[in-house]
C-alpha cells in the first residue's frame, strides 16, 4: 500500500528525502508539538494514522496466530506491486471467519493502555477435555517515544514485529500439536480484550516477548505465554458457575480434511451472553450473534455452545479393531481357561481343581502320591488338556491338513544335526584338516573369479 505523504526527516542520508505511505492524503510535517503547559502531544493526523495502524496490526496479529494453528503449512506469494489489503507489505491472507471474530472484539476500541488484546489457543479432545496452550497478548504500555515518525518508522517496525510473530508462532510447543490435530483433538482459539488470563496455562508456564515498538501513544508489546506442562489434566466442565472461561465460549477451528461425517454443523441455538467474548464494553445486542457455519474448503469454524459436539464426536466412525467404550466389560473374575475345566470328571472329594488347593508340602520331600491334587503324570497331562484345533486363517483342509499346533510342535523339537553330535565333531575336524590343502588350492585357482565378483559388488 502506498499513498502520498511528504516527510522530511533530517536523520536521512545527505540529500535524501522521502515520501511515505499511508492512506491519508494530508501532508504531515510534524509528528508532535508542545502544548501550552509544556507537555507533548501527538498531532491529530498522526493520532488517526497510528490508531489505524494499531487496529490493522491487531487484525493481522490474530490472523497470523490463528493461521499458525491451522495445522497446515502456509504459503503466500510475493508480488512486485502491493494491493490495498497488504498491510505492512506482507502477504497475509485474511480468513473471513477470523476477521469477523476479531472485528467483533475490536469494534468498540483498539488495544490501548490497560486494554490488551489477547488470543488464547487451547486444545480440546473428543472426550470434551480441554487444555489451554498459549495466550498471545498485544499490549500498549504507557512509555511513549515522541521522536519516532509514525508514518514511516512505526509502520516499518510494526511490519518487522509481524514478521517476528510469523517466525515465533512456528517454534512454540503448540505448533507441533496443531500440526497433529485431527479426530482425536482440535485446536481452539478465543479473542478477547482485557486482562490477560493465564490461569488456563497451568503451573510453570513460560513467557516470551516477541518484540516492542515505541510510538507517541505508547509502546506496543507483543508477547506470548505458553504452557510447558503438556500432561493432560482433565478439566471437564461441571457447571457454568464453576468454570470462569467456558469451553463453549471458544471458536473452534477444525482443520482436518475429514470426511463429511465428521463435519459438525453448528447448533442454531447458541448461547448469547455465555460467550464471554469481551468485557462489559460490548452491548448485549452485540453478543447475540448468529453463528453460522461459514465453512470453507479445508477450514471449518465450529460454532461455540454446540451441545451436540460431544455426541457427534462420540458417534463418529471408529477404526478397525477398536472397541467402543460401551462394549467394554469388566475383567472376568473366573480363572483363565475355565471353560476347559468343565469337561473334567468329577472327583469324589470335590472339585479340587476348581477350588484353590492348599499349598503342597514341599519341604517334606515326600514323593507326591496320586491322591495329591498336584500329583501329575504324563497321562494325566494328556487328559487335563483339551487339544484345540488351531487352523491357520485362510487355510484349506485339503492343502494343509495339519493344524497350526501340530505344525508348530513339529518344529519345537527338531532332530539334532549330525555335525553337532559329540562323536562326529572330532571326526569332522580331522577330515577338515586333511581336506584343507585341497580346498586352498581350489580357491587359489578361482581367485580371478572371486575378484571379479567383488568388483561387481562395488
Amino acid at each position: 500500500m502506498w499513498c502520498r505523504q511528504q516527510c522530511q526527516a533530517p536523520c536521512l542520508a545527505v540529500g535524501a528525502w522521502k515520501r511515505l505511505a499511508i492512506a491519508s492524503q494530508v501532508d504531515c510535517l510534524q509528528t508532535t508539538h508542545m502544548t501550552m503547559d509544556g507537555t507533548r502531544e501527538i498531532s491529530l493526523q498522526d493520532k488517526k494514522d497510528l490508531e489505524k495502524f494499531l487496529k490493522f496490526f491487531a487484525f493481522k496479529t490474530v490472523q497470523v496466530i490463528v493461521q499458525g494453528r491451522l495445522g497446515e503449512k502456509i504459503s503466500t506469494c510475493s508480488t512486485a506491486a502491493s494491493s490495498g489489503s497488504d498491510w505492512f507489505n506482507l502477504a497475509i491472507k485474511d480468513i473471513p471467519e477470523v476477521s469477523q471474530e476479531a472485528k467483533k472484539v475490536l469494534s468498540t476500541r483498539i488495544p490501548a493502555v490497560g486494554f490488551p488484546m489477547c488470543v488464547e489457543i487451547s486444545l480440546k479432545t473428543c472426550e470434551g477435555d480441554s487444555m489451554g496452550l498459549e495466550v498471545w497478548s498485544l499490549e500498549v504500555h504507557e512509555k511513549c517515544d515522541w521522536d519516532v515518525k509514525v508514518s514511516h518508522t512505526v509502520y516499518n517496525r510494526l511490519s518487522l514485529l509481524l514478521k517476528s510473530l510469523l517466525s515465533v508462532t512456528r517454534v512454540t510447543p503448540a505448533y507441533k500439536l496443531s500440526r497433529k490435530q485431527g479426530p482425536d483433538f482440535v485446536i481452539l482459539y478465543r479473542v478477547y480484550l482485557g486482562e490477560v488470563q493465564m490461569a488456563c496455562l497451568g503451573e510453570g508456564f513460560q513467557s516470551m516477548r516477541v518484540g516492542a515498538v515505541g510510538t507517541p501513544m505508547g509502546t506496543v508489546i507483543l508477547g506470548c505465554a505458553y504452557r510447558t506442562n503438556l500432561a493432560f489434566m482433565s478439566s471437564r466442565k461441571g457447571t457454568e458457575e464453576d468454570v470462569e472461561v467456558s469451553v463453549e465460549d471458544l471458536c473452534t477451528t477444525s482443520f482436518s480434511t475429514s470426511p463429511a461425517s465428521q463435519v459438525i454443523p453448528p447448533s442454531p441455538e447458541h448461547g448469547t451472553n455465555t460467550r464471554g467474548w469481551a468485557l462489559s464494553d460490548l452491548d448485549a445486542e452485540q453478543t447475540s450473534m448468529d453463528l453460522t457455519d461459514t465453512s470453507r474448503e479445508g477450514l471449518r469454524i465450529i460454532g461455540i455452545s454446540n451441545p451436540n459436539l460431544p455426541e457427534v464426536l462420540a458417534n463418529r466412525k471408529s477404526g478397525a479393531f477398536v472397541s467402543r467404550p460401551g462394549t467394554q466389560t469388566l475383567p472376568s473374575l473366573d480363572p483363565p481357561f475355565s471353560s476347559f475345566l468343565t469337561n473334567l470328571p468329577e472327583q469324589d472329594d470335590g472339585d479340587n481343581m476348581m477350588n484353590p488347593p492348599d499349598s503342597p508340602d514341599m519341604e517334606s520331600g515326600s514323593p507326591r502320591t496320586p491322591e495329591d491334587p498336584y500329583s501329575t503324570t504324563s497321562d494325566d497331562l494328556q487328559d487335563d488338556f483339551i487339544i484345540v484345533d488351531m487352523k491357520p486363517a485362510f487355510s484349506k483342509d485339503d492343502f494343509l491338513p495339519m493344524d497350526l499346533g501340530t505344525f508348530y510342535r513339529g518344529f519345537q523339537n527338531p532332530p539334532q544335526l549330525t555335525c553337532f553330535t559329540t562323536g562326529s565333531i572330532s571326526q569332522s575336524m580331522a577330515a577338515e584338516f586333511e581336506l584343507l590343502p585341497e580346498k586352498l588350492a581350489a580357491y587359489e585357482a578361482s581367485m580371478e573369479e572371486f575378484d571379479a565378483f567383488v568388483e561387481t559388488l562395488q
Partner: protein
Amino acid sequence: MNCRTQSFEVSLEIRQLEEAVLAVFHSALLHRITGKFHYKREGTYSVGTVGVQDVDCDTMDLTYVRVHSEPLDRALRRAAAEFREAMRGAAAAGGGGQISLEFYQRKRSRWLFSDECIPWEVWTLHVRLLHLASEPDRQVCHERVGETLAEVIRSIAVVINRHEYMPKMPTESELPAVFQTGFPDVQPYLHRVAFTVPDGPAGSVGTAVRRLIKDTLAL
C-alpha cells in the same frame, strides 16, 4: 559505526547441516527484506508485498518461515551446500566450522578506488559435527537440534526487535548501495555468505580457509 554481530552454536550431524543453515539464515533474511521499490514521480515510491512460506525440515524436528522467493532460496541453498561440502572434509576430524550471513552497505569511494563494503549486521552459526552410530541417538539428535534452532529463531526475533541501527531508506539513485535489486520479486538488504572450515584430515583447526561467496548476482 560498529557492526552488530550475533553468534549461535549448534551441534549436529553433517546431514542436518544444510537445513540448519537455511533455517537460521532464512529467519534472519525474513526480517531484512522488503517488497520491491517502485519509484514514481515526485520522489514517491510504492513498496511491493513479501510473501511467506512454511518449510518443514526433514532432518530435524523444526518448521521455519522463509520469504517466498525461489531465486533467494536457491542462492541460500547454494551457499549452504558449499558449506556442507567443505565441512565433509572436516567431518572425519570431528571438528567444527562457522558460516556467517553478513549485511552490508556500499559506500562510494572517491577517486578510482572501488566501493567500500561496510557490514552493519552479521549472523554467525557455529557448528560442531557429531558422529552418531545408533538410531536412538539419531532420534534424540533429531529433536534436540530442532529445539536448539527453535531457540535460535526466538533469539533472532528478540534481537531484530531491538530496532538498532539500520541503513536509511535510500533515494532511487542510492538504492543499489543499500538493497539487492537483482531479485524479481523481493528486495533484501545487501548481504553475503561466508564460511570458515578447519583443516580436514589433519584433525586440527589450523589455517582456516576463508571463502567469500558473493551473493547471487547470476540470476
